[in-house]
């Protein structure tokens, strides 16, 4: 098999805090606090105190303007060598996985020996900005040179309507539609039923609960602010309970509910990547290798393609590049933004028409063995703190491969703006 990267990149450690539903356990915590504590947990677990890493890469989707250099600030408080560089990235829900790909690429090229990919998000501490009119007036006031000009802009700034703050919106700027509304349209297009979505959601909870019970997450998740498990987890849910919920985005015949979608969530995650030599030198076990990544975007304006369907394009390209088939994997981690997204993506790959017309392939990629899909649960059960999801998925899959001993896993994460970030891990 052609290797995708010039040098193997090992996943050698990971840490995350339990994910918490918005405005619950972490309601009073900031992104910076959660990410700092998560990095400290990683540092303490793997004795990285004082280590000079090549780079720490991460981000948050919902970020205050004061956190413009967030990851570097967190690194300074992390116990790592203070000379460790860092930078912020933002690619919506793909942020965490994109960060891992960026770190992996630098390691593969020999530019760095080890680095951390991380992500954090909170919807309990969202960046509420001042009114756009007030912001303009303040900027003009700041730029004004004469007293009279200053006075003029000051008077302009004082206006009752400026008291209305600018709130971050959960909507696509290009379409005005929420992500759920988009997903609803795509689900209809592929004929995804409410029952199928509810079944997938229930399975997510059951698998995540079992994983916790088995201790699978013992060395991946650290206790934090009273939580030991993701507090969105509902192990005792049932299809009957799920069936009772009203559609969340389309009252007339909609199929997406609060229960078969991922909730607004607070949390943070971090993954330690390194060259094989570095891992050996530090005595850290290699869980798995990050083989490659692939990113795609689709034109979702007027729903010419589903907003969250980009991974369906990225993955076939990645498979072609490596000479693999969709069936060559032991594990599939398809991020459950909505149960419908997972099912639409699988349906697209099973569709001759989609694969021929949209992907230019001779025929359908085919089905996957569903028993290999999200085997330790996914975002519907765990929750989805946007930028932290990538780290959660990479860590989970790496440990699955480490436990299996050998194998290959596929990661698919859909993101706002019609984007999709995907990657392959193997061991």
């Amino acid at each position: 098999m052609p290797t995708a990267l010039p040098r193997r990149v090992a996943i050698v450690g990971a840490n995350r805090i339990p994910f918490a539903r918005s405005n619950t356990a972490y309601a009073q915590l900031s992104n910076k606090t959660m990410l700092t504590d998560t990095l400290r947990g990683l540092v303490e677990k793997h004795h990285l105190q004082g280590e000079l890493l090549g780079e720490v890469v991460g981000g948050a989707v919902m970020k205050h303007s004061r956190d413009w250099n967030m990851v570097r600030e967190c690194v300074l408080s992390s116990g790592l060598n203070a000379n460790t560089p860092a930078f912020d990235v933002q690619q919506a829900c793909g942020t965490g996985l994109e960060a891992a790909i960026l770190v992996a690429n630098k390691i593969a090229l020999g530019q760095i020996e080890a680095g951390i990919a991380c992500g954090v998000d909170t919807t309990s501490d969202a960046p509420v900005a001042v009114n756009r009119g007030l912001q303009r007036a303040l900027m003009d006031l700041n730029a004004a040179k004469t007293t009279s000009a200053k006075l003029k802009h000051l008077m302009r700034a004082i206006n009752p309507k400026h008291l209305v703050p600018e709130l971050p919106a959960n909507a696509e700027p290009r379409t005005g539609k929420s992500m759920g509304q988009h997903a609803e349209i795509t689900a209809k297009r592929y004929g995804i039923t409410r029952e199928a979505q509810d079944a997938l959601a229930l399975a997510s909870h059951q698998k995540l609960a079992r994983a916790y019970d088995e201790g699978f997450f013992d060395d991946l998740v650290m206790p934090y602010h009273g939580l030991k498990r993701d507090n969105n987890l509902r192990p005792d849910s049932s299809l009957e309970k799920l069936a009772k919920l009203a559609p969340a985005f389309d009252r007339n015949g909609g199929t997406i509910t609060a229960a078969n979608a991922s909730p607004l969530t607070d949390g943070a995650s971090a993954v330690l990547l390194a060259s094989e030599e570095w891992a050996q030198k530090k005595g850290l076990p290699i869980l798995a290798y990050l083989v490659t990544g692939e990113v795609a975007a689709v034109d979702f304006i007027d729903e010419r393609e589903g907003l969250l369907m980009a991974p369906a394009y990225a993955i076939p390209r990645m498979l072609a590049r490596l000479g693999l088939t969709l069936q060559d994997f032991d594990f599939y981690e398809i991020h459950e933004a909505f149960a419908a997204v997972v099912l639409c993506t699988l349906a697209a790959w099973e569709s001759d028409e989609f694969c021929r017309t949209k992907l230019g392939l001779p025929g359908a990629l085919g089905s996957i063995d569903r028993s290999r899909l999200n085997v330790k649960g996914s975002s519907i059960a765990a929750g989805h703190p946007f930028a932290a999801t990538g780290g959660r998925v990479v860590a989970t899959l790496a440990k699955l491969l480490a436990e299996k001993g050998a194998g290959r896993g596929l990661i698919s994460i859909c993101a706002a703006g019609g984007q999709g970030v995907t990657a392959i891990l193997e061991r």
Partner: protein
Amino acid sequence: MADLLLRLASDRRTAGLIRRLGLPTPVRLARVAGGYDAAPLAGRLVVYGAAPGGFAEAALRQAAEGAGAHCVTGLSEGQAADTLLFDATGCRTSGDLAALHGFFAPKLRRLARNGRVLVVSRDPVTLDDPVAAAVARGIEGFVRALGKEIGRRGATANLARLVPAAESQLAGLVRFCGGPRCTYVSGQVFRLAPATAPQPGASQLAGKIAVVTGAARGIGAATAQRLAEEGARVVCVDVAAARDALYETALRVGGLPLVLDIAAPDAPSALAAFLRDKTGGVDVVVHNAGITRDKTLANMKPELWDAVMAVNFAAIAAIDAALLAGKVLHDGGRIVCLSSVSGVAGNFGQTNYATSKAALIGYVAAQAPLLAPRGITINAVAPGFIETPMTARIPLMTREAGRRLNALSQGGLPRDVAELITFLALPSSAGLSGNTVRVCGLALIGA
């Protein structure tokens, strides 16, 4: 931590009023930022002298001049002395002691604010003649009383007790006791034994590894910083509850944070493994972590007794055993234990605390000869009233009393304790082991 009285007494506009009210008038104490430089006594006028028949005068003068001081045997008109050094090793009879009066009495009025006094005597236990031994012991009383007299001006007085052939060890002690860093240490005895010690100088801890427990705040944080200023890489240890402050300290001093409850059963082995793997061992160990669980003995639950004993004493012995067993603590290493004036004098409501802190005094005395073959020294420092977050929680009137009942009429700062700890941790302090040194501003309580 603000000392209002100190502020009012140091302000020219209010100082007179404070004096007329009969309140103590503490002076602003001299302190030094940063680490030792090559000539820490530069710019100081040192007056030295000796009782006839002594053997340490030359070493005293050499030590002071080597540290950059200007040394004279007498003051000319209008001069003020920054440091007075006196060799009393010649005192063998009660009559000889008059030399102390002869040297100091005329000079005390001309001792500068924040002046320093260091007297050198023989070690009574090494003297066969009971009278000579008594005379040597008597000098300790003189130094303590002198310290109480000059404390009003922020000055401190200390005693070096020499085992024969230990004069060469005075080089480091003169830099500490004869200079500004001896801010809150007064009336103390430093027993110097012969040793192979490097010449004191700047950055003596460069390339060395230090570990400080309880490093998140207060004395521990100040010690971590002070050791780092001498060039050490400091492993800063504290419990999980202090994690934020611990990481801030580690960042500030360029050290490594290590979250560890030293009283946990596996803590000694965990610490030893961390130091072996991460830093290749350790050179300086500062046992600073300690807790108080105050109750009068009749009301004290066994848990309170056990908790204090576990953290303040048992953990220290267990950690030392682990670090010594695997030679994780390098030869030539330094151990400093934080005792307390409570351990020296006892304190109401602190039977548990005083027991644990007094035990450390016995511990360093007993360990010192055992560690000597490896060139490791072990000493204890016993802080008095230090302005820390812990003492800030003491009720106002008790706090005021604690603060004023010493020769300097004020509390010490964590930095002052850190200065003493750092001095004991220097390679040039090889001649000091088994000592317990108070850093209490010469507290009025205590032996």
